[in-house]
C-alpha cells in the first residue's frame, strides 16, 4: 500500500513536549518537510533558543546547537562563517528570545545580510516561564506580569519585527505568516521553503515570522486560540511579504 502521509525524515521520531494545541509542532513539521524536500538535512545545522523550543535539538534530525537566550543569530553567524559553502544554518526562536533579549543580535544579523534562515515564532507571550508579557504582547493583553492588561504608558507598544527590519537595507527576505488554518499553513510552508532556498542561493538573511498560538498561557482552548489569532493578533500583525529584495530587483528590471 502506498504511504500517503509520513513523518519527515528531518524530524526525529520522538514525542514532542509541547502543550496540546500549541502550534510549535506544526512549524517544526513544516521546517522538517522543507529540509527533506530541499535535500539538505546532511548539511543543515539548527540553532535552538531559550524558551519553549529550547529542546528543539532533540526534535530535528540534523546537527543541532542550543544557544544562550537571544544569541542564536550570533551563534548561527559563527556556524555559517565556519564553512559558508557547506553549512545550511537556521535558527528557531520565540518572541522573547528574538525580539527582547536578543534584539541586537537579530537586527545586526539582518543588517549584515548574514546568509542564514530565521524561523521566528510570535505567540505574544513567554510560554516556557509560564506566561509573562512578551515584547510582542498586545496592548491590553493580560499576562502574569501584566495582570491588568498591557499598559502602553508603562511598558510601551508591541514590536512589529518584520516592519522594523524591513527598514534596514541589509536583509533579503522578510515575511509574516500564520498557521491557524490549512490555507495559512500552506502559505507558511512556501515562505519557509523560500527562506531556506534563499540561503542555498546565497541571497542572505531570510526571516519568517510565524504568528502562533499559546492556548495554555492565553487561557483558551486550542480552537479559541486559533480564532484569537484572526480576531486579535492579525489586525496588529498583518500577514504578508515585508521585504523580498530579489523579487523587487526583478520587478525593477
Amino acid at each position: 500500500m502506498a504511504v500517503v502521509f509520513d513523518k519527515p525524515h528531518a524530524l526525529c521520531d520522538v514525542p514532542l513536549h509541547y502543550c496540546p494545541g500549541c502550534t510549535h509542532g506544526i512549524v517544526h513539521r513544516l521546517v522538517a518537510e522543507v529540509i527533506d524536500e530541499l535535500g539538505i538535512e546532511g548539511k543543515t545545522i539548527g540553532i535552538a533558543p531559550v524558551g519553549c523550543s529550547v529542546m528543539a535539538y532533540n526534535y530535528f534530525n540534523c546537527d543541532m546547537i542550543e544557544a544562550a537566550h537571544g544569541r542564536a543569530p550570533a551563534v548561527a553567524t559563527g556556524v555559517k562563517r565556519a564553512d559558508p559553502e557547506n553549512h545550511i544554518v537556521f535558527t528557531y526562536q520565540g518572541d522573547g528570545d528574538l525580539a527582547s533579549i536578543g534584539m541586537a543580535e537579530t537586527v545586526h544579523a539582518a543588517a549584515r545580510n548574514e546568509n542564514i534562515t530565521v524561523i521566528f515564532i510570535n505567540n505574544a507571550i513567554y510560554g516556557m516561564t509560564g506566561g509573562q508579557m512578551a515584547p510582542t504582547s498586545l496592548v491590553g493583553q493580560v499576562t502574569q506580569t501584566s495582570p491588568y492588561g498591557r499598559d502602553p504608558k508603562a511598558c510601551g507598544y508591541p514590536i512589529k519585527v518584520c516592519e522594523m527590519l524591513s527598514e534596514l537595507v541589509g536583509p533579503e527576505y522578510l515575511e509574516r505568516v500564520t498557521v491557524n488554518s490549512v490555507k495559512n499553513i500552506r502559505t507558511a510552508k512556501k515562505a519557509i521553503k523560500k527562506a531556506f532556498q534563499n540561503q542555498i542561493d546565497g541571497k542572505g538573511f531570510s526571516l519568517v515570522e510565524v504568528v502562533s498560538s499559546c492556548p495554555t498561557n492565553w487561557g483558551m482552548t486550542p480552537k479559541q486560540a486559533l480564532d484569537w489569532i484572526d480576531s486579535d493578533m492579525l489586525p496588529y500583525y498583518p500577514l504578508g511579504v515585508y521585504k523580498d529584495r530579489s523579487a523587487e530587483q526583478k520587478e525593477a528590471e
Partner: protein
Amino acid sequence: MSDKILMKGNEAIAEAAIIAGCRHYFGYPITPQTEIAAYMAKKMPKIGGTFLQAESEIAAINMVYGVASAGKRVMTSSSSPGVSLKGEGLSYLAGSDLPSLIVNVQRGGPGLGGIQPSQSDYFQSTRGGGHGDYHMIVLAPASVQEMAELTVKGFELADTYRMTSMILADGTMGQMMEPVSLDIDVKPAPEKPWATTGTQMAREHNIVNSLSLVPEELEELNFKRYDRYKVIEENETMFEEYKVEDADIVLAAFGIAARVSKNAVDEARKMGIKAGLIRPITLWPFPKAPFKAAAEHAKAFISVELNMGQMIEDVILATESKCPVTLCNRAGGMIPDPKQVLNSIIEINGGAK
C-alpha cells in the same frame, strides 16, 4: 634559530593565533587590546579567514561559540569591562565543553575603570568568569615572546581538554614592543567527532548543548568535567622559579609584576637578602607545588600584584599558612616599581643586613 622581529604584545598574539591555525576572529573595540582586532582585520581577508567586528562583546563570544561548535579554532579578545560582558558566553562554552581562546588585556576597574594596566581580573579569570562550576585554563605571559607562545599553547590545550583557554595579559604586555621569534611549533588540532558540521546523512545528529534538566545527569557532567580538570592540574601546570632554592623571602608575581619583581630580587640579593621569585605561568591551574616546597625553607612570602590583593589568596592556600604572606601592590592602573618591591622585601626581612 629564526630571525626575531619587533612586535607589540597584542600583535604577537594575533600573529601567533594565525600560526596556530585560527582563521576566525570576532571582537569589539576596547582599549588597550584593539591592535589585535586591527591586525586580524588586515590579515584575515588575505588568508581566507574571517574577521568580524561584532555588534557587542556578547555577540562576539556567541559567534565564537558557533565556530567552536563547528570544530574550528576560534578566538576573541577584549579588555576587562568587555570580558565581563563575555561572561555569559564563557559559562556556555564551559557547559557545552567547547574549545576556544579568549584574550583579556586587563585594565583598571571596577566599572569602566581606566585604560591603564591592571591585574584586577585575577579572581574573575581563575574562578571561571561566569556562572556555574567550571574553570578556564588561564595563561599569564610576561614577555612578548610568551604572548606568542602561550597563544599557540592556549589553542592546543583548549582542543586537548575541550575547554576555554584565556590569555590573561595586561595593558603593559599588550602595548609594549619586544623582539619575538615566531618560529613556534604547532600541534595540529585533534579530530572533533562531536562537532556540528552536518551529518552528511552518515551518522546520528550531533548536539552541542549545555542544558541538562535531570539533576543526576547534570551532577555527573560536573563530576566528569572536574575529573578532566584534575588531569590538567597534574599535567599542565606551568611556572618559573628564580633564585628560590635558598630564598628566605619568596615573591609571587605574574605578568608584568613578575618582571618588576625579578629586578627587586636582584637588588635584594646585592644587599645580602636571600630573595627569590615564583612566577605562575598558569594561573589556573595554580602551581601549588613550588609554593608548598618553598614554604619549607622560606621565612615569608610577598605577593606582588597590580590589584588590591587577589592571587595572594592562592599563595596563602598553596603555602598552607606555614609562612606569613603579605601584599605589595598598586591598583587602578598603577604599576609598582622595583624600589617599592625592594622596600617590601627589606621591611619583611627586618631591615637590610
